[in-house]
């Protein structure tokens, strides 16, 4: 059980980090999208 909990924590860490990167990328793309949209207007 100790081993199972450890693996889960590791996986949770990994997915959390991935989520953080996804959120940052999404923010960047949103910003670029609206800048481009504004430019085209």
């Amino acid at each position, binding site marked *: 059980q100790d081993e199972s909990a450890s693996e889960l*924590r590791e996986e949770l860490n*990994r997915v*959390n980090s991935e989520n953080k*990167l*996804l959120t940052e990328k999404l923010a960047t793309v949103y910003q*670029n999208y609206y800048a481009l949209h504004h*430019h085209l207007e």
Partner: protein
Amino acid sequence: MDYDPNTNPFDLHFSGKLPKKEVSDSSSADVKPKWLVKDDEVSLLQEELNRVNSENKKLTETLARVCEKYYALQDLLKELQSPEHVKFQNQKLTKKRKQDLDDFVSSPVGLSCGPTIEKITSEKATVSTAYFHTEKSDTSLTVKDGYQWRKYGQKITRDNPSPRAYFRCSFSPSCLVKKKVQRSAEDPSFVVATYEGTHNHPGQHASVSRTVKLDLVQGVLEPVEEKKERGTIQEVLVQQMASSLTKDPKFTAALAAAISGRFIEQSRT
């Protein structure tokens, strides 16, 4: 514009690049109750992992959608900036101007100088734009549109270095038509006149229309030649009116009745 075209939001294979750091397992290290059995801890971790995975999925989907729109906009921008598109737009504009010019000249009220007219009709007022060809070296604005105007303002706009002059119809306040005149920013060989409203009186024919001249420094200018021209115009107008009225049988009858009525009144007194 502040955007980074090198952004590659589809690069989602970054999980292998992530640093392998341990969970700051505060729930298990600091707050973890001693009575919590290992099964419960595994269950909670699994639940949290499911939640984070679901969030991860939603984020990935949203990112894909936004990226798709972003790339579509980028393609549109490239298309608009392509030399072929710019050339096409210029040709289209030239054709439109020529067509409008032909339409206006062939119309019964067309002026000999042939301005290009674009009309936008709204519920409140009719707005029309006319382009008048002018020499680039000519610093004054000359607009022959068949009506007389009174200037009431002038200002410089940010988008165009040439001054913009504002006019009211000389029949104001009975006629509320206004216009603004400015040299075209795109093509300085044209003067753009924008009209608001429709005249409630007839204008003068092109052959007898008065030339409205603006001196950009001194404001409204009336040179001697123009005064002479106006005098000639008035004479022509009077002759035309007299000619048309004498040909009108109703008018002659009404005139005869009025004169005879006046004679009768005088004979009574």
